[in-house]
């Protein structure tokens, strides 16, 4: 079968779902994806990092980072949205340029009991110029902080949206995605104005 490239090819975009270990990234991807989330891995070579001695190799260490991803098709507009849950080992996936290259934006999931675990991802996106919002995944036994308290604790710019969500709930997770796109749209409008 011959495909006409221009007719067949959907526009493919990606959004990253980041945050500390156990904060609900995989759950979020699962709630929003139209397919059963897939899992794969990449081999990251960290030259002379001096952090971990993973092997007897002196000059470089290679590690495997596993990540989950899902997919959402927007058939009306021929767009396919990929949701990449970033691997848990931050210091390694931060070195994996391909994962973040070309990302439309990012969602940093936060757990108010362990807010400090969000800092690394926030710094990373700020440094890369990737727009993001913070979604507080509300755990039942966590103290219900107000978004402004979270903003102060994370030292976030006033325009970065902070939303509360339940990553297990599809409607809630989809709402976070829409908020991110609205934010990106507002930022793009300001950029082109």
């Amino acid at each position, binding site marked *: *079968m011959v*495909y006409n*490239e221009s007719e*067949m*090819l*959907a*526009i*493919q*975009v*990606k959004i990253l779902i980041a945050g500390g270990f156990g904060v609900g990234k995989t759950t979020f991807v699962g709630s929003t994806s139209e397919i059963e989330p*897939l*899992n*794969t*891995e*990449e*081999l990251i070579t960290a030259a002379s990092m001096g952090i971990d001695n993973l092997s*007897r190799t002196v000059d470089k260490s290679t590690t*495997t980072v596993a990540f989950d*991803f899902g*997919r*959402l098709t*927007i*058939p*009306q*507009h021929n*767009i396919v*949205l*990929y949701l990449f849950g970033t691997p848990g080992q931050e210091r390694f996936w931060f070195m994996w340029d*391909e*994962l973040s*290259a*070309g990302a*439309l*934006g990012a969602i940093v999931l936060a757990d108010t009991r362990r807010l400090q675990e969000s800092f690394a991802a926030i710094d990373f996106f700020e440094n890369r110029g990737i*727009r993001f919002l913070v979604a507080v995944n509300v755990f039942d036994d966590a103290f219900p902080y107000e978004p402004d308290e979270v903003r102060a604790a994370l030292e976030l710019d006033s325009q970065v949206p902070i939303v509360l969500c339940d990553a297990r709930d599809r409607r809630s997770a*989809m709402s976070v*995605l*829409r908020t991110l*796109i*609205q934010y*990106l*749209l507002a930022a*793009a*409008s300001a*950029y*082109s104005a």
Partner: protein
Amino acid sequence: MAGDDEVWLDDEAGPLIRPYTVNSGRTRPTVEMDLLSLVVTTGKPSPDVDPEHVKVIGLCQTPLSVVEVAAHLRLPVMVTKVLLSDLVDCGAIVIWASSTSSSHVTDRVLLEKLLDGLQRI
């Protein structure tokens, strides 16, 4: 006759990881592609019967992204890319560059379409 304690696989043999066996030890693809590049089978028969190659050809009857191919093969992304390069070289598949790019970040039309689509879900 070798004794039971004779070590014939030592450190010099390197790690015995199957993915590298799949790729005959190569670690870099010869064809440029990224996670979202689309892979599609051409219909031209592959000259070999490597089980991974056969699986890719079956998977990519309709276009499938590189990262999804990797997930289905249960192989690391880089290993999958090397394998896909071989299949491009023998004409069994073609790879279409993904249409994603950083310019999309400020593409209002795209973002509006995406938002509209998400609101319908």
